[in-house]
């Protein structure tokens, strides 16, 4: 049932060595065999059924921001095995494997970038790195990003994709929920806007901290979002779960998020939000808004 590999798609990325070379891709939702070139042109959205494949952090960043504008911070911060945790294999080994397969040192990448003429702080979680789980280094990088947004008074965009707190770091991981939330409390008090984008999947401790604290919360269609997993709920309660339980659309219907936005429309919606919440002389809202309407063709932000 859980086939993470088939849920990813490799889009052209400015960073070499990231993503897998795949000839054909089967859509996990409609079982169509998809052509990678067409899928890439569609930003990793199945051109038959609209299924949103998971994106790696570099791909997400390239898709969202103006080419060459992203300046990564804290690239060197790496997870450490403080507890000496070993399950079926040592945590230290899992970290090495994730670093090798993703080319990143942690499950989160952050930096300043430009989006539709707005400078902003962009924080992107990567589910491919240990399920996007939040350990101490992850929480540290996210908090650094939040604090930068506060210090520089730049709007904050966090793109979440995570299974929750990283169990291999025990309580040090759990405390990152408090740390990131406390930092967001200060950001909110300072009046700096925070947009939270939830992507498939966003679960557990990440949902119970920074992901659900956005001034505006957006989700991609079909993304699974929640606290406890459906399997855990069924084992605990024997409840029959409603159709579409914990999907983005379910959360919208229950008043938990503001918008469900298809990936192709994200750049235009983010531009509109930034124009509204962070108007600047460099990016006067109305002008850009009119331009956006004229040129809001399918894929404005794919680079290279």
């Amino acid at each position, binding site marked *: 049932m859980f086939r993470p590999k088939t849920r990813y798609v490799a889009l052209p990325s400015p960073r070499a060595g990231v993503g897998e070379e795949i000839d054909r891709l089967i859509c996990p939702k409609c079982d169509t065999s998809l052509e990678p070139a067409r899928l890439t042109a569609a930003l990793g959205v199945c051109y038959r059924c609209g299924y949103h494949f998971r994106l790696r952090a570099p791909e997400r960043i390239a898709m969202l921001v103006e080419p060459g504008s992203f300046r990564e911070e804290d690239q060197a*911060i790496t997870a450490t095995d*403080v*507890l000496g*945790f*070993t*399950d*079926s294999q040592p945590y230290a080994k899992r970290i090495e494997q994730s670093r090798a397969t993703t080319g990143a040192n942690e499950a989160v990448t952050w930096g300043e970038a430009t989006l539709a003429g707005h400078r902003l702080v962009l924080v992107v979680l990567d589910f491919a790195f240990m399920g996007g789980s939040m*350990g*101490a*280094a992850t*929480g*540290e990088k996210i*908090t650094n990003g939040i604090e930068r947004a506060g210090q520089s008074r730049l709007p904050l965009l966090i793109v979440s994709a995570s299974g929750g*707190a*990283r*169990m*291999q*770091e*025990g*309580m*040090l*991981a*759990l*405390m*990152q*929920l*408090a*740390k990131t*939330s*406390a*930092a*967001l*409390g*200060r950001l*909110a*008090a300072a009046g700096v806007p925070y947009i939270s984008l939830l992507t498939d999947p966003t679960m*557990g*401790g990440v*949902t*119970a*901290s*920074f*992901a*659900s*604290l956005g001034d505006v919360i957006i989700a991609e269609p079909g993304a699974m979002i*929640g*606290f*406890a997993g459906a399997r*855990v*709920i069924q084992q*605990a*309660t024997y*409840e029959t*779960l*409603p159709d579409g*339980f*914990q999907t983005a659309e379910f959360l919208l219907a*229950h*008043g*938990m998020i503001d918008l469900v936005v298809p990936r192709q429309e994200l750049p235009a919606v983010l531009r509109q939000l930034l124009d509204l919440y962070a108007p600047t002389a460099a990016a006067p809202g109305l002008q850009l808004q009119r331009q956006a309407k004229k040129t809001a063709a399918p894929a404005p932000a794919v680079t290279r």
Partner: protein
Amino acid sequence: MSDNGSVAAATWEQVELARHPDRPYALDYVHAIFSNFLELHGDRVFGDDHAIIGGPASFDSRTIMVIAQQKGRSTSERAMRNFGMANPEGYRKALRLVRQAERFKFPIVAFVDTSGAFPGAGAEERGIAWAIAENLVALSAARVPILTLVIGEGGSGGALGIGVGDRLLMMEHSIYSVAMPEACASILWRDIARKVEAAEALKLTAADLKRLGLADEIIPEPPGGAQNDYGQAADAAGAALRRHLKSLEAIATDRLVEERYQRYRRIGATS
């Protein structure tokens, strides 16, 4: 038995003590340590959650605000308390009490005792994660002293949802974990029977948290555990709460809130 095996067995003993059915629960401590406790009800949104209780009480000459996770002892009370697993309404009631405590300058004393937030369809529909996250923000910035005392099980985000504060105190045989050992074993080992190993690996005992610099003080329990002498356990807990509250009350509010921010900020900091 190997060294590793015996260490794990000792850890498991701690887990079982933390969950001992005769162990004192939050109300046992509240009634023994404070006077005049008046339980308030409801989140003013949807309902009243009996897994999280709270209200004002007298502690020496001051009023404090109690927020506590409450387990049940009889079969019917266990069901009524939902086995100490709160729904969003419990966290929202707690939030209401945090706001009230700030308004009237009541220090907050939180008793943590839950295996986790309730994993239910209704809890998800009503935003359990949203409710917990709001509490993390509110508690981290609340302009009153906050003492957190783990009396039994501290399970995951459900515990942290009332557990952010200026001091973390733990009863000697309490545990606090990112995930309950059973859940951890079934996810990482794909075998719930490996819960004993998981418990050891998670570093969840009071002594572990003290070593990690997360818990400030371990409160000694009567020989064999708190279930053997409620009075003695409550006396020790009350004395520790009194001492820590006194030291927090001496700190100016701005500094108190800044120190609380830094307390969490430095967990896992790289520099």
